[in-house]
């Protein structure tokens, strides 16, 4: 390269780092595969490095003229005496990642009834099958719950109706929506509603109501007809037919973006991930959430969760994700939601609202549950645990406790305090920490301890495998192009 004119100094003249020394910024590393490591900083920026690079970084021996040095500096793994603006930028990025915690509870789940017309073996919420109106939420309970909802400082409030089958108590849904909208005339939040339903009772009245209030629908679709009907039995053995008809009606009437579906993995699902995904494509759904079964409700009573382990589930996920990438390569945008959440954490300055991957845990401070009887739980899983007889994470009741009683209860504060990954054994020094979180209810349910020993944690095993897999997928430029399109 030809030199510049004499009036100009050379690039070496602008290195003000004394003795070529540098300071390490907070970072962590974890093994990725043979001889390679993931190096991540406090705000989730990362580099994949080999052993010698990692050692030279830690020993402060990286050559200051190398691209590796500039990468480490640009991604804020180190700073030198030439520049200290990294500290300002890291502070800004940390605040951005933690923004949701400061905004507090945005998702409010109303369990409007425990009644359900289905008899799913894996049911995680312990439905009541017959006509027991004792398991319906009353207007009085709903009104008291709503008063708590609007105490949350969150600028966005989402009210999600859960069950049982919530449409079995449609009158109460109508009541809550109307009351919430009235309250919001003074509170002026970004207010949204979701009904999580099996769509059995999705008639024109319900659709018109959803249309009028911009309500989203969320349903369960486990796969092809045989699999879905086997996983989700109902009298008449036609749950698949009812569900896909409901999805179609909702798409037509409300718009494709107003209806989403979730799947739950059972042992039967494991060998048919491609067929499950095809079912989603056939019904014009543009994403799928490949979810493992959680260890609550009937799923535990019936030993459903023990029938397959994390390794087997991961193979299922990996095969599914490969197939989804292939679908995207053919020019069709289709997203796996869990991967999307992780990609957003890896590739953007933001965090996601996904409750299970937050530190501190999102229990009660991201999402909270108002049960049909007015009891308040830290999470949907905490309610499931309670229905199994363990009321460990019951925070109070809308009938007897104030906002302060509930959100400052010892059980919640203790749980949150012990749910900081940054101080949890085996988490605090893990390279995947910026992308992970803690799930105290899961660890309590499986290990009777809210922190849990991560060596025996299915949560840790599952997430580590997924993180490593996704990070390696990102190394292929063409795959990366697809995956960056998923980032929200």
């Amino acid at each position, binding site marked *: *390269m*030809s*030199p*510049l*004119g004499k*009036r*100009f*100094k*050379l*690039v070496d*003249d*602008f*290195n*003000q780092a004394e003795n070529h020394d540098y300071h390490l910024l907070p970072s962590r590393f974890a093994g990725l595969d043979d001889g390679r490591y993931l190096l991540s900083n406090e705000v989730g*920026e990362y580099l994949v490095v080999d052993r010698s690079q990692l050692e030279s970084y830690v020993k402060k021996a990286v050559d200051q003229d190398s691209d590796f040095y*500039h*990468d480490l*500096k*640009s*991604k804020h793994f180190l700073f030198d005496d*030439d*520049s*200290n*603006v990294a500290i*300002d*930028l890291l502070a*800004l*990025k940390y605040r951005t990642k933690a923004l949701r915690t400061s905004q507090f509870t945005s998702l409010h789940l109303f369990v409007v009834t425990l009644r359900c017309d289905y008899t799913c073996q894996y049911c995680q919420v312990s439905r009541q099958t017959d006509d027991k109106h004792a398991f319906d939420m009353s207007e009085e309970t709903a009104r008291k719950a709503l008063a708590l909802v609007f105490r949350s400082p969150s600028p966005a409030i989402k009210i999600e109706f859960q069950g049982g089958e919530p449409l079995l108590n449609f009158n109460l849904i109508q009541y809550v929506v109307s009351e919430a909208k009235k309250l919001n005339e003074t509170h002026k939040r970004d207010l949204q509603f979701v009904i999580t339903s099996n769509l059995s009772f999705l008639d024109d009245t319900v659709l018109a109501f959803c249309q009028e209030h911009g309500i989203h629908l969320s349903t369960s679709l486990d796969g092809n007809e045989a699999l879905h009907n086997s996983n989700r039995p109902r009298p008449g053995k036609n749950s698949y037919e009812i569900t896909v008809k409901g999805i179609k009606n909702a798409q037509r009437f409300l718009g494709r973006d107003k209806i989403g579906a979730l799947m739950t993995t059972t042992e039967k699902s494991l060998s048919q991930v491609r067929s499950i995904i095809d079912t989603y494509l056939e019904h014009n759904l543009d994403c799928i959430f490949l979810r493992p079964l959680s260890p609550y409700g009937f799923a535990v009573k019936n030993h459903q969760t023990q029938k397959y382990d994390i390794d087997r589930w991961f193979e299922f996920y990996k095969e599914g994700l490969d197939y989804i990438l292939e679908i995207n390569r053919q020019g069709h945008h289709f997203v796996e939601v869990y991967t999307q959440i992780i990609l957003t954490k890896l590739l*953007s*300055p933001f965090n996601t609202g996904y409750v299970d991957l937050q530190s501190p845990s999102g229990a009660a401070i991201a999402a909270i549950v108002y049960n049909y009887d007015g009891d308040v739980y830290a999470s949907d899983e905490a309610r499931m645990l309670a229905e199994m007889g363990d009321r460990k994470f019951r925070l109070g009741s809308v009938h007897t406790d104030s906002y302060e009683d509930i959100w400052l209860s010892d059980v919640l504060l203790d749980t949150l305090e012990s749910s900081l990954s940054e101080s949890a054994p085996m988490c605090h020094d893990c390279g995947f920490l910026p992308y992970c979180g803690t799930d105290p209810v899961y660890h309590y349910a499986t290990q009777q301890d809210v922190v849990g020993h991560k060596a025996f944690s299915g949560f840790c095993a599952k997430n580590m495998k997924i993180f490593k897999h996704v990070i390696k997928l990102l190394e292929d430029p063409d795959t990366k*192009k697809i995956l*960056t*399109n998923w*980032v929200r």
Partner: protein
Amino acid sequence: MMIRLSAKDNAALSAMTHEEPLIAKITVNPNLPNGLRSQSVLIIHEPAAIPDGFGLVLLAFDGEIANAPVNTVRLSNDIRYLKENDVIKFYPAGCKINVLYRKEANVNTFLLTERCNSFCIMCSQPPRDIDDSYLVDDILEALPLIHPETPEIGFSGGETTLIGNDSFTRLIQAAKNHLPNTSLHILSNGRNFNNLDLAIKVSRVQHQDLMIGIPLYADYSQLHDFIVQADGAFDETIRGILNLKRCQVPVEIRVVIHQENYHRLPRLAEFITRNLLFVDHVALMGLEMIGFAKSNQQALWIDPYDYRHELQDAVETMAKAGMKVSIYNTPFCVVPEAIRCHAVKSISDWKNDYLDECSKCSAKQQCGGFFSWNLSKPSLHIQPL
């Protein structure tokens, strides 16, 4: 075609009554009411009786003229294009005319100062350490004369903030007062916004449509500081951008691409999406071959075709992150097809040109073409589409 914005070879045809330079608006109407004439410049394109009372009369033709009134000047050929509503500065001493504003121009840029606290290796307008504080007064005088329907004006330098915080904010305030429907684009290296007070002052003006364009040439300090030839500039510029955005002043990041920084372009794009995602626009700019860029041509020039992969990578990284990204100063045919939608016509009309072969190109209408002074050093991969 290149348009000259200044001419010295004008000829006085009669006595000059002006002692001081005159900043005034051009009219083609010889019957302008008497009360308005002394503050107006009449331009005449063919022999005719010249009415009295105009502040200045410009003859845009060569023929003889009888009985020229005082303050009559024959225009240099270079600036006979002047039209109704244009604004000029006339220097009676040397009969020099500077064109301050052309109503027809795609953008009118005002030079605030030639002084600068950086010394960029590719500067297209090398700084001069002179006292040019009169420029601020000129602009304050010119702004009220500018046509109110002008879509956009620009302030450029040198380093614009070097005119002082008070003058800087006063100019923005004047632009807001006189041109409430005009957007204002200001170029600055951002370093002085390291001082939060200046950012606060600018935001308090509450200009209706302001954008401050700030260059960021690399994703780490040493390379940026080398390119702007100023130690500490990277940190000051980043803190300046943060301060402006803290005050909700719109900011555009401008990246000039050359031999010294093209290889870090994808990294810079990542750096911007991770750290400065909240800026309002990013412009990735081809080199303007004049000033230092020309004298340092051997060290700096890289054919845009040779950095097309880095360019595409950078554009896609930022666009996918939801940022508004544009490619400036780069002919359409050397921009990869996938990112052509980001290529815009960025070059001011007075210094915008095309090669002969461009007349055969079907995309000429959408193409920004070349800086007039880049015609001698075009990409080797120019081809009509």
